[in-house]
């Protein structure tokens, strides 16, 4: 009973102004600036400015971090666009994506053993985290060689263990993201046959927050945008300070600076707020999200209630929407990125 009772407490009473917030993060190249900012004091600086307290909470398991956010234990979380749609948004949690941090530009990829042709994947057992962006990437990859998903047999594999499993000789096809991807790519007979660099801008890494909380506390959005873009300024520098910052992030991610630089090189960071605003307001985003939601719906990720791909509504800057307008639960919101671009923070 205690178990059930404690998860019913965080009701939608978040609508009052508050001063303390928890933001979840998990280890991924595009999200490492957040813990770095916390360590470097950037978070405190901006929080103080708006009279807030912001805690960045590490969750080792990515899915768990998103689940925690959906359950209301976290006010915001770092998440990929597809998971933002299928987990909190499909669960009826009104979510705003306020920072579009980067897109994967080779950080996700398909590895095959013994061939460098994607088409050779036909009929193989493919190991991947099912229903994740890897699955989406696989679908897009197969599309590029005119194969339906049913041409391969997918086997769900946990992301932490996928690196270990690939060294087993009976596994010849995997889809994964970094750092596992680069760990596996080191194997002598592994070939990267398709990667997110082939579908630029489709796998986006976001920071999302609860819409009601944001409406009641617009300062939270301002502080987060301030933190992010100040951090971007440091880590994208080629200076010694930038190098040190990247080394610190590498350490936080449990890896070496060299490997981390390699991961960053396949991550397209929107370093300038204006770039991020441009990406968010571009009609390409609507195209991407249409693809993503069609894929998600086809995989049954909207749950039983959903009768069509339109079941979950999304909104974009400029009042554009996609899907059910009565049930908009995922909002791409460029307000705070715009403020950062305008230097209005």
């Amino acid at each position: 009973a205690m178990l059930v009772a404690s998860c019913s407490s965080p009701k939608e009473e978040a609508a009052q102004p508050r001063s303390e917030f928890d933001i979840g993060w998990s280890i991924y190249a595009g999200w490492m600036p957040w813990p770095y900012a916390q360590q470097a004091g950037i978070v405190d600086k901006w929080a103080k400015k708006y009279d807030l307290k912001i805690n960045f909470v590490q969750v080792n398991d990515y899915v768990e971090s998103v689940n925690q956010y959906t359950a209301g234990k976290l006010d915001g979380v770092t998440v990929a666009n597809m998971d933002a749609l299928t987990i909190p948004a499909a669960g009826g949690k009104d979510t705003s994506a306020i920072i579009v941090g980067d897109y994967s530009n080779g950080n996700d990829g398909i590895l095959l053993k013994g061939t460098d042709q994607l088409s050779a994947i036909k009929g193989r057992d493919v190991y991947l985290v099912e229903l994740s962006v890897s699955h989406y990437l696989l679908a897009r990859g197969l599309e590029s060689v005119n194969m339906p998903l049913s041409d391969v047999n997918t086997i769900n594999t946990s992301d932490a263990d996928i690196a270990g499993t690939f060294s087993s000789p009976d596994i010849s096809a995997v889809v994964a993201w970094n750092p596992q991807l680069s760990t596996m790519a080191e194997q002598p007979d592994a070939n990267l046959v398709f990667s997110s660099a082939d579908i630029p801008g489709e796998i986006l890494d976001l920071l999302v927050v609860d819409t009601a909380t944001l409406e009641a506390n617009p300062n939270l959005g301002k502080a987060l945008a301030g933190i992010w873009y100040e951090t971007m300024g440091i880590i994208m520098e080629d200076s010694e300070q930038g190098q040190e910052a990247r080394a610190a992030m590498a350490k936080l991610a449990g890896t070496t600076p060299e490997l981390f630089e390699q991961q960053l090189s396949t991550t397209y960071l929107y370093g300038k707020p204006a770039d991020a605003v441009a990406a968010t307001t571009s009609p390409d985003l609507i195209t991407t999200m249409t693809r993503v939601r069609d894929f998600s719906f086809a995989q049954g990720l909207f749950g039983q209630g959903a009768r069509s791909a339109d079941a979950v509504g999304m909104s974009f800057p400029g009042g554009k929407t996609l899907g059910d307008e009565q049930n908009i639960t995922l909002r791409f919101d460029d307000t705070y990125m715009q403020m950062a671009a305008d230097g209005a923070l």
Partner: protein
Amino acid sequence: MRWVNRKVGRTNAFIMGAIPIVLLMIVYLVLAGDRHAINPNDKILPLPSGMVAAMSDLVTQPDRLSGDYLFWSDTLSSLTRLFIGLGISTLSALLVGLVLGVLPPVRATFGPLVTGIAVIPPIALLPILFIAFGLGETAKVALIVIGIAPFMMRDIAAHIAALPREQIIKAQTLGASSWQVMIRVALPQAMPRLIQALRLSLGPAWVFLISAEAIAADSGLGYRIFLVRRYLSMDIIIPYVAWIALLAVAIDLLLTFSSRRMFPWAHGGDR
């Protein structure tokens, strides 16, 4: 009448046992109702109607891709793995436990090794396991076996080593050799304990099965739970967990029952 002496009849026991379970269910329903009143799409505490809707597809509709009834094929794969794993563990526990329990030199030699293996959390060994066994069914069964067999071996060995010394002496005065002591004195008396150990291992066995299925699988109850965890489909997770509990309780009852049937002498105190 003192509480120690109150016997409870079968029917009463059934009713009394059901009470707390039913109460828990009611608490759940109230809480779930509350949450749904606020957010009708709430995923965290689904209502029974939602669970039925989510499950009915899995139970009654063949999957578009494979043509399987997913729920049943999941159950079948998991039970197959479970039973193979349990079977191997039980057999090896019996053999090793017997030898360790009866023969002190063997116990001295291999006891520490078994203890060592028993205390190493198999979850931490997963990468090594995959390399050794690949990713197929072998690895899953192996995880179950590595997870529970050492525990069972230790339990059986300890039980046998604790048999009254007089029994072993007695058997020897009746002409029994080490081997005969093992098969005629230790083995039969280890059997009820083996069933008991098996019952206690059921929980961990499921844990390891689910962990294995969470790591790499394309069917199975654990696979489904971890798959749908990706989008927080509690309407599938909760029925699956309940189903696992039901299966486990059924196996548990079956084991208790067969122990009573097969080894009545070991249950004299129960009447």
